[in-house]
């Protein structure tokens, strides 16, 4: 019985996901670069989980590892109760798709829009005839707000926002239930960002797709996400409902991230205190012992150097990995 409830509640279950890249450090020596080191989270159907963190903390790697674009080093990923392995990933790609960060390099410059969007259809043979393929592509283009006459054009003839729409249409082509959005708006202008994000929300409402929304802009993530996970050096440090995280951040790293969000009102901005982190992010090749954040944390104690704090509940769904707060 317990199995059934679990299966129905979460679409995506990630347990202790690990991704280490071997890096040559000597002639025969390789050291693992721990890009993702034991990340666990769940996503319900139709829900959006925001994943934030600074550059190089492993956000993108999480997304790519879920789709087996990188072979995971360890951990388990259940999709709709089914363990994702090398064998069934091809079929599961019909249900999981990805939108890429850079709309300029993620579209083949030699292909027309119709062929780019049609590629997943071709791979899975999701049409009966040429006409059917064309109709499906037209529907997708309409869904993301592209005109029918754009179909024969090449990617370089579009603006960044339109290109990202093409990328989204490609991801939607197989009618997926889960889309990994890998910083889909960070390469766009602020005004275009808003359009694209609203489109993501509209599509979610229409089709009930779950998103893993990776970004480094907390405002954007807060806007679109139901829940937010904060990542630092390959580990999750805090995960909570979007509003809860915004109003009541607990982990010192989340605090500093939130304090860096620009405040539009100068009066409030003057009063608020900016937490400036000292030092740089440690290299993932030489991770500090214990908690990875302790080298820059003002609450750090002896204990932090000894062991990595586990994610523990601070009331409801609010999970934090910190000993001292």
């Amino acid at each position, binding site marked *: 019985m317990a199995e059934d409830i679990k299966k129905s509640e979460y679409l995506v279950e990630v347990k202790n996901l690990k991704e280490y890249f071997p890096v040559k450090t000597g002639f025969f020596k390789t050291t693992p670069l721990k890009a993702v080191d034991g990340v666990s989270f769940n996503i319900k159907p139709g829900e959006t989980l925001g994943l934030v963190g600074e550059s190089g903390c492993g956000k993108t790697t999480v997304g*790519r590892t879920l*789709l087996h*674009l990188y072979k995971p080093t360890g951990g388990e990923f259940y999709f709709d109760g089914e363990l994702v392995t090398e064998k069934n990933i*091809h079929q599961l*790609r*019909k249900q999981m*798709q*990805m939108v*890429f*960060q*850079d709309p300029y*390099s*993620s*579209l*083949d*410059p*030699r*292909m027309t829009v119709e062929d780019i969007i049609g*590629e*997943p259809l071709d*791979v*899975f043979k999701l049409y009966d005839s040429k006409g059917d393929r064309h109709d499906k592509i037209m529907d997708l283009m309409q869904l993301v707000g592209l005109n029918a006459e754009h179909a*024969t*054009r*090449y990617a370089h*003839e579009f603006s960044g926002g339109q290109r990202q729409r093409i*990328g989204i249409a*490609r991801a939607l*082509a*197989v009618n997926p239930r889960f889309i990994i959005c890998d910083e889909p708006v960070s390469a766009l202008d602020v005004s275009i960002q808003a359009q694209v994000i609203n489109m993501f929300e509209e599509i979610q409402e229409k089709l009930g797709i779950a998103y893993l929304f990776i970004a480094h802009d907390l405002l954007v993530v807060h806007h679109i996400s139901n829940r937010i996970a904060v990542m630092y050096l390959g580990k999750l440090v805090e995960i909570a409902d979007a509003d809860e995280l915004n109003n009541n951040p607990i982990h010192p790293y989340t605090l500093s991230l939130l304090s860096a969000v620009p405040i539009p009102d100068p009066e409030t901005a003057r009063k608020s205190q900016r937490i400036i982190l000292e030092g740089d992010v440690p290299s993932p090749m030489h991770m500090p012992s214990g908690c990875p954040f302790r080298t820059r944390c003002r609450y750090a104690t002896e204990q932090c150097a000894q062991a990595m704090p586990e994610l523990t509940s601070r009331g409801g769904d609010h999970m934090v990995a910190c000993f001292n707060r």
Partner: protein
Amino acid sequence: MDMQNLKKNPFSLQIDPAKFEKATDDEKRQQDVMAESTTFFKDGMRRLFHNPLAVMAMIILAILIVVMIVAPMVVPYSYEEIITVEGVRDKAATNLAPFEFSQREQAFMEKYNVSVFPHIMGTDELGRDYFIRVVYGARVSLIVGVFASLMVLLIGTLYGAVSGYAGGKTDMIMMRIVDILYSLPDILIVILLAVVFKQTLDFSNIPIIGKLGTNMVSMFLVFGLLYWVGMARIVRGEILTIKENEYILAAKSVGASPAHIVWSHIIPNCLSVIIIMTAQEIPAAIFTESYLSFIGLGVALPMPSLGSLANAARSGMQSYPWKLVFPAVAIILIVLSFNLIGDAMRDAFDPKLKK
């Protein structure tokens, strides 16, 4: 308007919305001005045809090719036929200067009051029409050049694509093989292989290929076996950069197979490099063919080649200089044209050189 007034009454408030009307769909469409849809290939071709040197080279090459095709139909002599007058061998018709007729031919013309087709480039030491021999020699050179570079294209692209896409250890081993082949003195190997193939291979039983002659086929093989390494290196390098693009990752994430990725994403994106390399390979192959024929390892007699014609003319260089000049000029024109076209293609298709 003074500043005070402007502050109280900003422009945005001075505008009366009632004076505006919504654009109709038709008017909106008029605003939707987009340049003609252009592909990378079309764009490159446009730039290629704007290069005067390239256009000149193409015209010269086109003229040469037309001459090569038409001349054997028009000229009544064959490349291996010694000139005959009224069915009798004209032994005096050797080493004639351009447009010169032998005494027998003149007598024949006067007798029947007809004109004999002129020897445009004179005749050779055996009394064969030199023009038609040069034309056939150029044909051989061009066929060798084109087929050899097609072989290079095929082997080099396949090898480079596999090596570049596989990466890792496979790439390492495949590229070390290329390095070894690269370090061999190629002229020496060409000569050795040409000699070996001449002795051991016999293609005369195979249709079409047999007609070309064992020598010519062995020449293709020699080129194919040696010169693909450069192409393989270039293609591999290109693929290494292309496969880092996110659209390759995107294709993987929609579940495309490696063969599909290589065929529909990687090859089209390095096509321009492949075309340019092939265009530059043709003159190199023609040059090597001429060189091999010059030292006597090329096509078999009586089939002429520009190189062997030049070699034969060497002995009589002081008495009959035109016999060296004609094949030499033909080699120069062909090689120079291909080189210019190759260079212009590189300029036209290289996005880094885009103005």
